[in-house]
Structure formats: structure tokens, C-alpha cells
């Protein structure tokens, strides 16, 4: 039988290899916030002539209207995305008219968003609260659902550690992608993150549930063996479920249009991490806890990870 629990420190190590660079990226570069969080305006427009002028020329029009620090981005062959500080409808219409005149083309406004700075910072605070509330709610539920098992609380905490693992993976990878691909963190990212939290716990519970059942059936076996047995028994299910979710997400990624591409990619990373952590982190953490292995972590003479 596969010995997953025995190699738990290897799997913890793999997690750290992904998480640590991500955290460094997060510390160095941070997460660039979309206007939904930072406040400001975003205009996405199409030049119906099909030819785009140089971004500098577009910026000049914005400068004349008092928006010199705007960021101009091109999208496709005929679209521009311009981020500015907060702008009202009237100014927007004025600038679009000016662009239209200057470059002698009809301009179709595809999207115009404007968000006040107060709303933005409020969303960020609420988002942090939402994650915290979800974590507390889920810990309480698991502790309740596993109330018949010894140390029910451990299951809740381990599930939350595995969940935090997934949150860190998603945040770290996103920080790297944002830095190199110029992505921004928007409410959809937040939605994705919260979904990952839900999925992560969903996955972990399936493994824990089997441990719960097996603990009752095999009372004489060492805890470590019971846990490993449970992981292996649920492996096929874990992989199949992950595959089906990945199929649907891949379909969305490939055919689903550009608006939700970042969202779906974030979900893909999170779902993968969620399955990994439920198999290789959550249940092994229970074993670490049961053996109180941290007492041996900093002793040189003892073997690491007693099996």
C-alpha cells in the first residue's frame, strides 16, 4: 500500500517550495488592486476604424483633460483599456468625444467602471472579514460534525491549516502572475479565493470522514496506519472529483471568454492545491499532532519524522 503519511515531511516540503516563493513575491511586490478596491475609473473602448493610435497619443488626450497619470493598455487589435483616477460620466463622454475627433473614428464604449476610494477600502476590509468568518464557521461545523471522535477540535484546526495552505498558494501564485503579467486583484479574485476555501474544506472532510469511520472499525491499529489507510482508500475519489472539476474549469478557461479568464485560472490553481493539501497535508497534520512530533523537530540526535 502507498505510504503517504510516512513521507509526510517530503510533502510538507513540496508545499513550502510553492508557498515560500509566493510569499516572497507577495512581500516584495504586493498585490496590485483593481479599481474596485483602490478606487478609480476604467474605460474599455473599441476603435471602430480597427486601427489603434499610439498609447502616448491617447494619453495626450487624457492629459489635456487633467488625467495625465492615466495608464493606457491595448487589448486585441482595436481595443483600449484605460485606468484613471475617479472620473464622472460627463468627463468620460468628453474624453471619448475628443478621442473620436482626434483619431477620426467612431468609438464604442464596451465598459466603463468608476469606484469611489471609500467603497474600495471598505470592500477590502469586508473581504478579510468574510474569510475570517468562513474559517471560524467551518472550524465550528467540523468540530460539531466530528464530535463523536476523540480530539474533534484537531480535525477542525487541521482542516483550517490545509485551507490556509491553499489560500497562501493562491495568494502567492497570484502575486507572481500579477507582477509578471500585469494582472490585478478584483472582486472576482475574491470570489475565487472564497470558493477555493469552500472546496478545500469539502475535500478535506471527505478524507477526515473516512478516518472517523476507520478509527471506529480498526481500534487496535496505530493511528498513523489508520490515517494512511483512509487517505489511500479515498484517493480514487479525490482524484476523480478533482478531474471532473478541472474538466469544467478547463472548458471555461479555453472557451469561456476573456472576462472570467483570471477568475477561472485562480480557481484551477486553488482546486489543485485544495486536493493536494487534503491528501498530503490535512490528514498527515493529524498524525503530527497525535505523535506530538514538534518535540523532536529541533533535536539533532533524533531521527526526523519517525515512521
Amino acid at each position, binding site marked *: 500500500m502507498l505510504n503517504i503519511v510516512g513521507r509526510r515531511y517530503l510533502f510538507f516540503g513540496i508545499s513550502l517550495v510553492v508557498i515560500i516563493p509566493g510569499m516572497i513575491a507577495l512581500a516584495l511586490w504586493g498585490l496590485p488592486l483593481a479599481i474596485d478596491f483602490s478606487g478609480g475609473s476604467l474605460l474599455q473602448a473599441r476603435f471602430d476604424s480597427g486601427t489603434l493610435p499610439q498609447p502616448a497619443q491617447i494619453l495626450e488626450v487624457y492629459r489635456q483633460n487633467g488625467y495625465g497619470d492615466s495608464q493606457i493598455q491595448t487589448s486585441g487589435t482595436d481595443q483600449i483599456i484605460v485606468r484613471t483616477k475617479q472620473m464622472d460620466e460627463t468627463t468620460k463622454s468628453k474624453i471619448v468625444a475628443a478621442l473620436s475627433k482626434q483619431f477620426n473614428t467612431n468609438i464604442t464604449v464596451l465598459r466603463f467602471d468608476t469606484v469611489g476610494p471609500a467603497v474600495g477600502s471598505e470592500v477590502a476590509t469586508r473581504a478579510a472579514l468574510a474569510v475570517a468568518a468562513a474559517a471560524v464557521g467551518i472550524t465550528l461545523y467540523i468540530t460539531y460534525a466530528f464530535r463523536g471522535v476523540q480530539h474533534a477540535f484537531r480535525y477542525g484546526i487541521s482542516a483550517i491549516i490545509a485551507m490556509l495552505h491553499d489560500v497562501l498558494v493562491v495568494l502567492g501564485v497570484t502575486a507572481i502572475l500579477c507582477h509578471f503579467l500585469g494582472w490585478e486583484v478584483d472582486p472576482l479574485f475574491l470570489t475565487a479565493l472564497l470558493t477555493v476555501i469552500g472546496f478545500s474544506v469539502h475535500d478535506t472532510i471527505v478524507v477526515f470522514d473516512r478516518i472517523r469511520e476507520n478509527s471506529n472499525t480498526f481500534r487496535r491499529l496505530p493511528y498513523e496506519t489508520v490515517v494512511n489507510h483512509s487517505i489511500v482508500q479515498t484517493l480514487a475519489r479525490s482524484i476523480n472529483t478533482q478531474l*471532473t472539476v478541472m474538466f*469544467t474549469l478547463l472548458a471555461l478557461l479555453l472557451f469561456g471568454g476573456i472576462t472570467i479568464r483570471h477568475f477561472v485560472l485562480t480557481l484551477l490553481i486553488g482546486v489543485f492545491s485544495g486536493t493536494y493539501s487534503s491528501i498530503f497535508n490535512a490528514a498527515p497534520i493529524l498524525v503530527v499532532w497525535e505523535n506530538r512530533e514538534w518535540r523532536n523537530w529541533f533535536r539533532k540526535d533524533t531521527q526526523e519524522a519517525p515512521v
Partner: protein
Amino acid sequence: MPACQPMAGICLISGGDYYMSKRFPWLLVSIIVLIIITIWIVWPTNPGIHLGSINKDIQTKLGLDLVGGVQALLEADLPTGTKVDPEALSTARTIVENRVNGLGVNEAVVQQAGNNRILVELPGETDPAKALAALQQTGLLEFVDFSKITQTEIAALQIPNTVIKTDFVGGTTTSTSPTPTTSATSPVTSTAVTKPEQIFHTVMTGAELSSVAVQTTATGGYEVAFVLKPDGAKTFKDFTTANVGKPLAIVLDKKVISAPNIQNPITEGKGVITGNYTIDSANALAIQLKYGSLPIPLRVASSQTVGPTLGQDSLQKSLVAGVIGMLVVMLYMALYYRLPGIVADLALIVYALIAFSIFKLIPVTLTLPGIAGFVLSVGVAVDANVLIFERMKEELRAGRTLRQSVDLGWARAWPSIRDSNFSTLITCLILGYFGKTYGASIVLGFALTLGIGVLVSMFTAIIVTRTFLHLVLDNIEFSEHHTWFGVARSL
């Protein structure tokens, strides 16, 4: 064990004490009825239900990001730290809704978001500038005491765009009362009137008006009749009794729109505004009185405009993606789990029908993240089946009979399904709350579709798949067809 005689498509099982036997025919009939109902609901040209007093359209509601339009978050424009009276905000919401209806937009949404914002969604609106201007027109209507100033001064104040100062400030007033509603009832004599810098006293705000109508006068002219709410009626009675023959100004957004003289005390809370009104100017005044009476000023805190082309494109693409995703999942299930997989695929179609019917019935506004939530819940729906089938295979390998394995698979997988789905539902609830308070309809839509999906998936995995599988099981012998279950050899 050919214990079953097919009868009109329904299998009657004799003997056997496993869980499903007795309920099975009824379950099957109910499921078939359910399928027929959901197909009727999902049918694109569903006429809706119009029976007697029941009038319900059944239509797919598409979000702004799919059809294009304008979304705006209006925020109470009050000095920082001022508490917004919830009642006043709810009144403001109703008024904004009336204005939105005046714009002639179909399927508009106006809802309160948190304790100081109103979310407005105008699907299909093509002129965001005009729409936002109409909503932004805060229209704070006040009845202002002009009794202490001369006609010449009044004439000067009525010059267009002259802004006057009053003692009514947003959600609070300079009087002792904390809210605009109660301030209107405070005795007129309690507050100072014409101060050196000409701060006029607001007798009451438009919030006290209960109805307004244009009438014709005996001489063929027009006048505006109004009815006050009880509190306002009392204030008005006290004030008009004390000030007969003196002018009272109607002030909209701190600009004087009319300054009629008080001819008689208005004691019953009903009065008319007379003057040289034409039908148009009388209507304009009535509309200003009716809809311009926002109890709190509002400003646009954030807005989004999506062009119709972008929405159309997104809709088409995500539909295609959804269909492809579902087909791949169904193919995988059939290949991996064989016969139960095909049964699960059928259950998945039932799942999609039920979930989509619920979306149409509630109705849930479908947005891009909403569709993503739905697609994700397909994954969750499959997961319940995967859990059950994996359990079933284990039991088969452990040497149990097919029927035992099927029932044990269900019984043993249930705690996993229940606990994992409950934790997803907890997340959905928190997401939904977050989306609702912030007015982020996209987040709310996602939480709703995922949550409904999770609930429906529990039903289909437990009831529908099981019933279908029993229907099949009663007609085959496992020992002859073990490969149909993806188990290597007969046990």
C-alpha cells in the same frame, strides 16, 4: 432474481427488505413528474403562469455583464460620521425606483446595499450619462419658511440657480431631533428663523408628502393638490395657522422652485398649490414633489457600464464552455464508472434541469460568475456520485452482493456528502452576505447559484441516481455483467 414485472414502465418489486423497495415506484413516478415539470419550466418559450390572480412570468434573467447596461452604487451624501436613518434610506430606495421606472428600463433592479447605499442596475441602458444624471438628481425637497422676508427678497431668491441656505442638513438637523422624520414634527417656534447669513427654517421635507396630483381649477387652469402624512399634517397645521397670508417656499435642492402664499390654514393635511400653471408646469411641479422628495441626498459612489457587444460575446462563450465542460464530465463518468456512470450522467441532466428551473423561478439573475458557480456545482454534483460509486466498488470488492453494495455505498458515503456540502454551503452563505452588504451583485450571484447547485446536487445524487440505478439493477444480473460496474471480476 427476476422479482420484478415491468408494468407501464414502472417496476414493482416484490420481497427484499432493502431500503428502496417500498418507496421505489413512488420515487420513480415523482421523479418523472418532476422532470416533466422542469422541462416545461426550462422551455425557452415558456408562457409563464397566468391563472386568476397568479401572474408569474418564467424567464431567464440575465445579469448586466451578459446583456450590457449600467450599474451604479448610490451612497448617502452626508457629512462623515452622520448616521443614516434606515427608514429614510428605504424611502430613498423607493423614490429612486420610481425614477428608474421613469427611465423606461425593463428588469431594472433597485436595492438597498448595506446601511448607507442603494444599488441600481439598469440592464440594456445605452445612455449611461443620462441615466446617472437622472438618478444623481438628489432632489431634496423642502418646505421653507419665507415669512420673515419681503416680496422683493423672494423675487431675488427665485432667480434661477440661486442657492439658499436652510437649517436642514442631510440626515440630521440643527434642531434637537436626530432624524429628518422627527425634525419635521418639531415645533416651528423652537428654532431661530432668519439668521444674519440668511439660513431659512425648513418647516418640513418632501418626506412628509403622501400623495400629489394635478387637478383642473374651476376656471380651467391647473393646480397641484397634495396630501400629507399625519406627522407632516400636524406640523403644517401649526405653521400655516400661524402664518396665514405669508409666503412659503417650495425648495428643491436648495433652489426655490415656487413660493406661494398661504391663503388659508391647512388643518386637514390636504392642500392645493395654485398659480399660473399650465398642464406641463403643473405636472412638472407634481413630479418634483412626488419623486424629488428624497429624504437624504445621494451621490454615485461607483458605477459600471457594460456595452451590449461585450455582454453578448461573454454569454455565448460561457454557454459553449458550460456545454463542453458538462459533456467532458459525462464522458469521463461513463468511461470510468461504466453503467453507474451512465446512470449518474442521466441524473446529472436531471440535476441541470432542476437547478436551471429554480434559477428561472426565483428568479436568480445569471451573471458570468453565476454561470461559473453553476458549472462548479456540476463538479460538486458529480462528486456526490463519485463518492457513492467508489464506496460501492469497495463493497463489491469486499464480496458483498450487488444490492447490498449499492445500499451500503449510499449509506456510507452520506456522512461525507453531507459534511462536505454543508461546509460549502457555509461558504456560500458568507459570500452571499458579503455580496449583499457591499452591493457586489456578481459575488451574490455566484454564491446563489453555487448554493442552489449544492442543495440540488444532494437531492439528485441521493434520490435520483439511486432510483435510476435500482431501475437498472432490477433488470440485470451482476454476475453476468460485472464489467458494467468497472469491477475487474465477478465476486
